[in-house]
């Protein structure tokens, strides 16, 4: 039976992230210590198992890989030295490539964040929030907070930027098919 399981996903992930998911023996420390487990549709130890079973479809459409906050608690505690947060990074990128990413708003946030860097070379919170509001279609979120921030002088309207923005753009161009071993 087990020989019929496709190793394709596990191998693709190893090429991408260097992580050997086959070493997982289901101690479940990752799930037990995960601060975001309460919101996930597939628990981290189940992600590991599904990778071993080659279940691409379920993994590349699940919310877990997007909800992972990269706190690295699991990676630090894994007795088999699997960087589980790194595996989540790999699966997240694969889900983007497959066009099956769940948790649209989280993806929109990351895109807004990186667009800001591409434009200015630095992150300006006003530019980031403006862009996120526009792209996520939620312009009215946090208006009360925005006012408090403004009154506390936390909103800097004049963004600082990198002088050599061409160099920053070149980084984005050169890494646009961004993956490395």
């Amino acid at each position, binding site marked *: 039976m087990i020989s019929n399981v496709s190793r394709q996903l596990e191998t693709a992930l190893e090429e*991408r*992230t260097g992580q050997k998911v086959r070493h997982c023996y289901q101690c479940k420390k990752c799930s037990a210590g995960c*601060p*975001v487990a*309460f*919101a996930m549709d597939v628990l981290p130890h189940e992600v590991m198992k599904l990778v071993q079973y080659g279940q691409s479809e379920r993994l590349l459409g699940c919310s877990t890989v997007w*909800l992972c*906050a*990269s*706190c*690295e*608690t699991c*990676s*630090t505690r894994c007795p088999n030295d699997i960087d589980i947060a790194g595996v989540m*990074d790999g699966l*997240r990128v694969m889900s983007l490539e497959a066009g099956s990413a769940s*948790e649209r*708003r*989280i*993806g929109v*946030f*990351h*895109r807004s*964040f*990186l667009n800001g*860097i591409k434009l200015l*070379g*630095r*992150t*300006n*919170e006003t530019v980031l*929030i403006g862009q*996120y509001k526009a792209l*996520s279609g939620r312009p*009215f*979120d*946090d*208006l*009360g*907070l925005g*006012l*408090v*921030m403004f009154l*506390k*002088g*936390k*909103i*800097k309207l004049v963004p*600082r930027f*990198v002088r050599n923005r061409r*160099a*920053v753009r*070149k*980084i984005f161009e*050169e*890494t646009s098919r*961004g*993956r*490395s*071993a």
Partner: protein
Amino acid sequence: MTDLSFTYYPGCSQSGSASEYGDSTEVVCAALGIELAELPDWNCCGASSAHMTNDLLSVALPGRDLAAARRIGRDVLVVCAACYSRMRIAQSRMLEDEKLARRVERAVGENPRFEGRVRHLLDVLVNDIGLPSIRERVALSLEGLKAVPYYGCLLVRPPEVCFCDSVENPTDLDRFLEALGVQVRPWSFKTDCCGGSLSLSRPDVTEKLVNKIFTRAEEAGAECIVAACPMCVANLEMRQKPSTFAFELPHRLPVLYFTELLALAMGLPGVDEWLKSHIIDPLPLMRRANLIRA
């Protein structure tokens, strides 16, 4: 004598919503003889968004900064825990993986293999300046203050690139605060995640993590939380109860930067202004503890 001159990587937040962190860093460094020369034309490290969606970009963005640092040759000082993490990870990966270093070199057009050290300010204070020297510089003991140290994620994990003395129960910030006279309360949530990367996109998830940290800090008998990361501070101050129009703070425990408390203890100027810029007002606590007059 340890060399205390650094190339300073300020990071984006320190001229944005965390300007009190950036300003207090510059003031305490000047007072302690830590020389900071800003990295010329530095760019954003890419933070979580780069490494979560584009691995090569997450190394190449700090790669350009590390290339500039390499030209200068001095060790790099960082205060944001996220910048620190991204810089350290990019640096060690490029030094270990020549193929990756070459790809980054192509993207940034310059040698990014920085072989100096990337340090967090807390590391320099605790391990280079040393706590006995810090204790000697304390003009106003903060003994009226009960605090919990909050490390969050990126100051301690992954432990291979971080400076803290323990990954599960670090004590660097604890010992630093004790040197200032602070009554440090023991608690079990010092390295728990605040959910910063989901702050805008899934505030419902972040809210639960943030409130847990406040509740546990209150249970530990703390009157304030002390942190070393602008993402943690912003998140704790702003994400207790996300909503559309209202803004409520169920927990009133102030969240402060360790640099602000150091400046306060050393009697340095500027502290009042920094305290006023916090979303959770720390002034009532400071007055109660007899630490400020106004």
